[in-house]
């Protein structure tokens, strides 16, 4: 229990360490201002030309020698869970295997050591990577054009909506079409992106079966609507069955269809979003094409466009002339402008292309099918114990449960998640999507063996048995075997401490 004295839960050691579980102070507690881990030759004497703007006070930065730095960061790393260490079933986040070949090729000098503004004649290999990646993305999606520069999924959403807003403006309807339709199951970035561009958000209620119905869309459409943002497969792990009819209705109403491609990994190589009738979609390279999540970025969110929206795509774009490939770096014609300095997440392009080449068209389809198979296998293996908010039906690459099966046990979704940590698993996505009460969204991906899935299922069944048999106290005490027990988020928010002290 949380209020038990410390000695009963942890056997004390002098250092606070417990074998391989080592405590690590802050950099600012171990670093010193006069220590450095980088030897630099002092410059010959010279007269500075800084215009009198030299620093007058010390900065206060601590330094570490190289062995100290190695130990500090290695010890920190050991306090993290990772996909390399275990199943990481975060629904909608897609934690699949990160092939190390991709890391190796991204670090080739010919990619890592090339400047974005060196003459394009000296960077033809880099441009060819972008061209090949663009070709793969267009073939996989069946769309007309692609903007590679968005830096992440949410940045891609912004890109797509900027194109839609520009297209609306070019029709002279900027003042009349100011509404974006967003389903209640949508990821929070969707309404946030729309609001940033001045759209007001009209929420479409997700149906009782977890999908958006074309009738609900028709009812919300009107001459004030600029577009719809729909995730497919959606955040409940379900395919939006009405998608073709929805696209038709949206277009008939003079609006555009933005598809959130966060879950493209369920259908890559199996179906093409372009055939659904969409106008724009971002692709999270860090999800579908497995560039590493890196503890929260960097991601990459290229956007594909239909013919209708292609003219509004941002700079830079790729062109080919007699000298070879060329980046068009200034926004031309109807292009809405520029989203970022330089050309996008090249390091991620290299990794994603290597992933595509390794899989091939056949392998990408197999990845999608195995991901969907594994999610349905988990569903079928847990459906007698856990509850599903929209009934027991086929899911795509992730399966959504709610907490109604926990009702009356005193155990919450959060408690279950923390108990999973003690069993050596990263929890699933919890409390998202908002349309399911106490949501638990499980995405196994195609990277798990059957033995791994079976152990995960057996573990969840055992936890469910314990929750249903009155062991709530044990759940409340979880996690017990982690570097830290449950953390006080209220204290963190009430008294924000966002930096450490300066060095001694």
């Amino acid at each position, binding site marked *: 229990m949380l209020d038990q004295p410390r000695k009963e839960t942890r056997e004390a050691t002098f250092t606070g360490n417990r074998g391989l579980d080592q405590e690590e102070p802050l950099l600012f507690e171990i670093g010193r201002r006069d220590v450095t*881990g980088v030897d630099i030759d002092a410059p010959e004497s010279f007269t500075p030309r800084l215009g009198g703007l030299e620093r007058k006070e010390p900065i206060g930065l601590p330094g570490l020698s190289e062995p100290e730095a190695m130990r*500090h960061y290695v010890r920190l790393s050991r306090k993290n869970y990772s996909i390399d260490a275990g199943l990481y079933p975060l629904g909608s986040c897609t934690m699949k295997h990160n092939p190390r070949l991709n890391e190796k090729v991204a670090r080739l000098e010919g990619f890592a050591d090339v400047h974005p503004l*060196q003459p394009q004649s000296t960077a033809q290999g880099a441009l060819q990577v972008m061209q090949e990646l663009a070709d793969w993305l267009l073939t996989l999606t069946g769309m007309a054009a692609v903007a590679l520069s968005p830096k992440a999924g949410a940045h891609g959403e912004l890109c797509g909506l900027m194109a839609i807003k520009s297209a609306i403006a070019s029709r002279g309807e900027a003042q009349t079409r100011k509404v974006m339709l967003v389903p209640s199951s949508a990821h929070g970035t969707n309404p946030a992106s729309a609001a940033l561009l001045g759209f007001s958000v009209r929420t479409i209620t997700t149906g009782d079966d977890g999908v958006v119905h074309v009738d609900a869309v028709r009812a919300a459409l009107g001459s004030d609507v600029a577009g719809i943002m729909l995730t497919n497969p959606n955040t409940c792990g379900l*395919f939006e069955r009405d998608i073709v009819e929805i696209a038709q209705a949206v277009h008939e109403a003079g609006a555009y269809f933005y598809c959130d491609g966060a879950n493209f990994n369920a259908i890559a190589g199996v179906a093409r979003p372009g055939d659904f009738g969409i106008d724009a979609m971002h692709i999270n390279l860090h999800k579908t094409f497995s560039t590493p999540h890196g503890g929260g970025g960097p991601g990459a969110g290229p956007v594909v466009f239909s013919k209708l929206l292609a003219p509004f795509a941002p*700079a830079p774009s790729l062109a080919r002339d007699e000298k070879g490939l060329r980046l068009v770096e200034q926004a031309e014609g109807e292009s809405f402008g520029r989203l970022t300095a330089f050309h996008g997440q090249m390091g991620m392009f290299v990794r994603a292309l290597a992933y595509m080449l390794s899989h091939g068209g056949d392998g990408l389809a197999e990845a999608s099918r195995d991901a969907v198979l594994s999610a349905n296998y988990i569903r079928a293996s847990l459906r007698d114990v856990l509850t599903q908010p929209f009934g027991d039906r086929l899911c795509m690459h992730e399966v959504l449960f709610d907490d109604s099966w926990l009702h009356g046990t005193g155990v919450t979704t959060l408690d279950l998640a923390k108990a999973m940590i003690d069993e050596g698993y990263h929890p699933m996505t919890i409390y998202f999507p908002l349309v399911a009460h106490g949501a638990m969204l499980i995405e196994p991906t195609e990277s798990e063996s059957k033995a791994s899935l079976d152990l995960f299922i057996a573990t969840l069944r055992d936890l469910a048995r314990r929750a249903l048999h009155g062991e709530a106290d044990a759940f409340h005490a979880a996690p017990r075997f982690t570097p830290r027990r449950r953390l006080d988020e209220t204290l963190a928010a009430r008294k924000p401490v966002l930096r450490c002290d300066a060095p001694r």
Partner: protein
Amino acid sequence: MRYHPLTEADRREMLSKIGVARIEDLFADVPQELLLRDGLPLPQGQSELAVERHMARLAAKNLTASRAPFFVGAGAYKHHVPASVDHLIQRSEFLTSYTPYQPEVSQGTLQYLIEFQTQVALLTGMEIANASMYDGSTACAEAMLMAHRITKRRKAVLSGGLHPQYADVARTVAKLAGDEVDALAPDVRASEDLIAHLDDEVSCVIVQTPDFFGNPRDLTALAEACHRRGALLVAVFTEAVSLGLLESPGRMGADIVVGEGQSIGNALTFGGPYVGLFATRHEYLRQMPGRLAGETVDAEGRRGFVLTLSTREQHIRRDKATSNICTNSGLCALAFTIHLSLLGEAGLTKLARVNHANAVKLADMLARVRNVDVLNDAFFNEFTIRVKGDAAALVERMAGHGVLAGVPVSRLLPHAGLDDLLLVANTEINTDEDRATFVAELEGAL
């Protein structure tokens, strides 16, 4: 496929448990006419060996910064990164973890983020910093939007010394968000009068130091003028190493400081991924975009870290969030924080001095070249020269001789009548031999 563990036998067993005959049956919700029965016109999968060969062939077509005397900057800089940095960021637990939503199994990420936030705050001279943004240019646009929220005004003044692509990003966001921008003409010699552009509609002035043309700028008077008119000063930098030697924007009165962190810890990689730095005053905490790590205690009273103040963010506030941003640039921030902790104050200061010394040396050499003028009175590690003729053509000619000479201003400002200007950067990587080659090739190409 080597990445897929399931065997045909596994798949059959799993299908039987699910109660369907074929994997295709799992896609019953997809309109059947949309399913790609015959696959797509794409190549078959390839072995690791074959993929590596293909990628290596493409890589070999690029002239790299290590293989040429290299003087290219303009917002991305080649510095030496210690080998330990890349080794550490490739540790599985950093590389293959997600955003630290479950703090008990993410203390490693959360602790380095609060260390990073502290380093950024110290470096910029500000009170708080966030856990990073996509890059410098997007951080700059976010700073503009934040200033609009704080001042409840909607007009930004962009200095003519702001990196042209940063200005383009800010202009694009402003245009589509319905906000106003007063963008000044390119200002090669830092002679513009930004104060004259202040009025009661202005939410912020966005100014870069050292600016795009290399001039360090004293922001003190501008900051005071902004504050008198109820506007904020947003200071931008694109070369983080400069902060080792130059007065911090915070001490000069900036309200929001944003910049590009690539040059500490991160490779050039043709423009990304990089890491945006974002710092401000404590009073503006609730208006700041992006993630924040904060300190707290665990159930046993021990110090620990969590993501905090997430009510600002999109997953809670949805259409009322401070930003639509969902991710940061975690691994690049890690590379930044490791490199900076290896450097420490002593190393960073020295590194900055070497950069400046090398640039001074080159500027002195170029001052003696016929048909070349060094335009800057002051600079850090990059300055602008005027050459006879077209700088872009000159750069192409020199590249043909294996020298990457810099960035012609016309590449970023094609219609500004500045075709004879060249930005030249000089960091610790440049040797006396590089500089001699550069000058000789320049004289030959002119």
